[in-house]
């Protein structure tokens, strides 16, 4: 088992939709010292289940730890890393920029290139919305950083598997 090479994984977890579930999962990450880049919780088509998507960085050994420790929680029904080649990841960005009439059109042009949207405009600022992979949002952030950024909100990744049969295996009962 590789104990040195760092890798990035998106992990999808199906959990019981009940109060305190997020506390149970996030407190486990905290006390086991797992390094999480982002965590999102969302509803699923089953009202009894929620989906937690986390982006995790670590070695193969620590990935095994996070998967198996999380699988032990009673509220966790399924857990597995999402296969990069067979999954779609998206993240939403909301960003507020200082922009007066001299900058507006230049910013608009960048937003167009990234297929973003201008959600709000005032005399001195604008709010831009952008959806995409984290890499696309990182790219946008890189270019837009030469303007005056007032506020940034990124949701973190949510992901879904492309194939009909979910790739998720139930590690719980194996």
């Amino acid at each position, binding site marked *: *088992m590789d104990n040195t090479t760092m890798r990035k994984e998106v992990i999808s977890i199906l959990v019981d939709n009940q109060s305190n579930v997020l506390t149970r999962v996030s407190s486990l990450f905290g006390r086991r010292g797992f390094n999480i880049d982002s965590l999102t919780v969302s509803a699923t088509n089953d009202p009894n289940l929620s989906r937690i998507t986390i982006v995790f960085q670590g070695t193969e050994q620590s990935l095994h730890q996070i998967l198996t420790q999380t699988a*032990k929680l*009673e509220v966790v029904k399924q857990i597995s890393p999402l296969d990069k080649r067979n999954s779609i990841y998206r993240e939403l960005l909301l960003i507020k920029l200082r922009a007066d009439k001299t900058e507006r059109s230049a910013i608009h042009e960048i937003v167009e290139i990234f297929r973003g949207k201008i959600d709000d405009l005032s005399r001195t600022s604008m709010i831009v919305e952008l959806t995409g992979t984290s890499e696309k949002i990182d790219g946008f952030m890189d270019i837009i950083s030469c303007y005056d950024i007032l506020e940034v909100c990124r949701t973190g990744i949510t992901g879904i598997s492309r194939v009909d049969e979910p790739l998720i295996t139930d590690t719980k*009962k194996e």
Partner: protein
Amino acid sequence: MRVTGSQLVAEVLLEHGVDTIFGYPGGTILNLYDTLYEYKDRIRHILSAHEQGAAHAADGYYRATGKTGVVFATSGPGATNLVTGIATAFMDSIPMIAITCNVPDPLIGRDAFQEVSITNITLPITKHTYFVNHIENLADAIRNAFRIANSGRKGPVLIDITKDVTADTINYKPGKPLPLDPKPAFSAESIRKVASMINAAEKPVIYCGGGVPSSGAAPELLELMEKADIPATYTLMAAGIIGYDNPRTLGMLGMHGSIAANKAIDRSDLIIAIGARFSDRVALNPNKWGKRAQKVQIDIDTSEINKNVLVDFGVTADAKEFLQALLPHIKEKNHTDWVAQATSWKNTTGDIKEGDAMIHPSEIIGAICDNTDKETIYVTDVGQHQMWTAQYLRHDKTNKFLTSGGLGTMGYGYGAAIGAQIGCPDCRVIHITGDGSFHMNLNEACTAVSQNLPIITVIMNNRVLGMVYQWQTTFYGKRYSATSPERKTDFPKLIEAFGGKGFSADTPQEFEEAFKQALKEDGPVWIDCHISPDERVLPMIPGGGTLEDMIIG
């Protein structure tokens, strides 16, 4: 049948064969205690001096009987006093059902009198917690709690019930205990692989832990040792499953393990870890530990595989099921030279006697063993006396050894001894403690007296906090910070005041006489043994160290 929430708790506990509860009453749990009054012919309640003692008793009750211990406590401080007991059970994978009552649901979140969110407090030290504020969820929560506590790697579950639920009513539909979760499946390939590694090894050694007693795999383990002629070492949690007179036992391993055990691990070419987790007290330096050996790990908890030490092959399986499947594939073999070599390291140090006292720990343990039978249950607290007991006790596979391994809870012993004696009234229970540990929870003497429990407490009294004192001697230039408290406690007088019997011993003869006298008493007895503060636990490998760092004398 229409019942209250409190009656429902009693009925569902009865479904699970619970006839004994440890606990302490209080405001929010009054309804439940009122129901216990009504059920007293079927459920016995043991009142402790402090909730921590009750939690340790529920733990000791399981370790002695194999029946899941149940503990009751009220909200707020009652619930928080359970925390150390629950954490102790969690670290040692002991099933336990803790039932607490909270303030009525309308008051939740308003900082009501004695309100605390015990489900959140105990989140990291339980397998699961239930907060029940609707009576419809109550029976399921309790039945699931028993299932979770006893499935897979065992552990404690806490159920917090709001007071209004204990008074509310519902139709009770009798049920049965839920089936346990299936044990992990393992492949035929994994059996063949492990068998071929064992069959090919020239210097194999078995390293077994708490998973072996937990799954009842001791007979299979002994068969494997014999069939393939493999020496074995054990962790504190597995002390007692291999008889001390077994020709292939190497004793305990790790920080205070035997020379034989640690040397065998170092020289071995195959380490077979069964139900053990390579803790930092065993694999002190995870990168150098067992460096010449291939490692196989069998554990019921997948997350333990490769957690602390990377292994060459890991199998997620119940120890008993796996060993049963494995044994037919194991070739009968003789490792005569290797076993002879490994066991010869056993006798490189005799009993160590230090300091100028006239009685030494090895003599105390020796005298205890000489005067007790094979069914005896030994319970320890935590510290030097615990290690001496683990080292010198003549462990027999029929007796039991109860100790706080993972959490290392000073003050565990007396509560656990009470739970063991309640669960096994016909067995002799010997509680071996130190003056430091015992001062923490000796208040449970009142419980032992009121229940008339003939527990013999042997206090290895060196008047210092011995284990920390030993570290200060060895690593801190004898700067004895806060370890020599100058206490003047007269233990024999103190137990007399509680209503029990007390003795003191300065020599092995005095101890043996006192111990023989104690065996004749009906109630609790304390024997205060005056040992030297200079007595150390040896051998010792400092934390993070290797075999080369071992301190022998």
